[in-house]
């Protein structure tokens, strides 16, 4: 039970964290400082320090048995490069959109990414497209339209057009980044000791 929902809980926590981060962008903007890219740089430095430490303390890597830092094959390196560059695009466009839209509206439009991720997941990862996911995506899409309030439906109450476009670009790039993450996490990681253990059994046969 715990293990089943732990990944979902982590993603939920990340949602909370990202919403606070969006608020920070808005607060900076309200303070007269357009600091989207400063925040991206700050986040990159924090992430580099923490994750480099995590990579450093990894016992498997210290024993020289894990994969190299950027993967062992060109395919992995390509996917990692794609994920990193596209992920940066998602963050940057999201922050730029937040400067022009309200925090909630920006978050909602950026959250169109599950729809793009799910659609691309069907074609790229061959993931199943079940009925609940279909209805959930339709509901999310309807919700996003209500938030963006396009002028052809709501008249003059539309949100900032540039902000909406930036948020949608962010959603598309974030969807692609999710797919890259899924590809990089397709295979389960197996501790090297277990592999050796299994090899020993096979040899003993």
């Amino acid at each position: 039970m715990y293990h089943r929902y732990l990944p979902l809980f982590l993603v939920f926590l990340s949602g909370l964290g990202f919403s606070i981060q969006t608020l920070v962008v808005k607060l900076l903007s309200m303070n007269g400082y357009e600091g989207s890219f400063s925040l991206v740089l700050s986040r990159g430095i924090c992430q580099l320090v923490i994750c480099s430490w995590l990579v450093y303390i990894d016992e498997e890597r210290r024993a020289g048995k894990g994969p190299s830092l950027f993967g062992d094959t060109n395919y992995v390196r390509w996917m990692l490069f794609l994920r990193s560059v596209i992920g940066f695009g998602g963050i940057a466009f999201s922050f730029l959109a937040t400067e022009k839209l309200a925090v909630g509206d920006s978050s909602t439009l950026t959250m169109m990414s599950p729809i793009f991720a799910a659609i691309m997941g069907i074609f790229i990862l061959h993931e199943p497209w079940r009925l609940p996911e279909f209805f959930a995506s339709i509901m999310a899409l309807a919700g996003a339209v209500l938030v963006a309030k396009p002028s052809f439906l709501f008249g003059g109450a539309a949100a900032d057009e540039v902000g909406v476009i930036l948020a949608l670009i962010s959603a598309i790039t974030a969807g692609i980044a999710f797919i890259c993450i899924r590809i990089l996490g397709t295979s389960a990681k197996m501790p090297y000791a277990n592999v050796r253990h299994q090899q020993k059994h096979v040899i003993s046969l």
Partner: protein
Amino acid sequence: MSFLYNSVHATQRRCNCSISDSCIIFLTYAQVCVSQSLAQIFLSIPGAYIANQPWTLNVGLYNAVLIFTGGFIGCFSQIAMTIGMQREKSAAATAMRMSDVFFGYIWQILFTADAASGTSILGAILVISSIFVIILFKPKDQPAKLNVDAKVAGDTVNPIDNSPNVEDVEIELFTINIDDDDKENKNTANIDTNMKHESNSMSSMLQWNQIIRSKIKNILKREEKYDELAQESRHG
């Protein structure tokens, strides 16, 4: 969409790899995050110039604190999301990520001057509802399931003398996935094993061939047994 599909699959062809359970890709979340952080650091500088944003250290204490706090929280969120997304099916995980929307409106009302209109709130409710649709209809654990994917050395032969090909003797991949839905302890055992062995000796190659074939037979027998156990547990 077709561009993306073609790009990814062209990369796979170039790198002699495919997206499937038998594609050996395993990076830790920390490695993925390190790569992403480098992209953020190196691309944010030209990005600031393109967006015509100020690039100075003299931002004031308030802004500096905000930038550092936002960066740290974003980093934590990124790590949490990467771990979560690697272990959860994309649609469900990305739906949970939409909690961002709910909190976004809370912060908007509490900390900014922007009013949250009725249609926006309704839209947010629809978006949040879609999260619950996915969670409530999340598929339950599958009963006993076992997949075997093995490529055995010696399956290919030399076209000249019909002898087993010894130049690339490689027991390439051997993957076992067992989801044991036992009624007593509900333990789920996932065993993914990659065994790689290279040999240039004909005898050892044939020996490995026999070993792997017998191992596959044993696994198939176990699969039948697991099916029986699963049936018993469901009816018991």
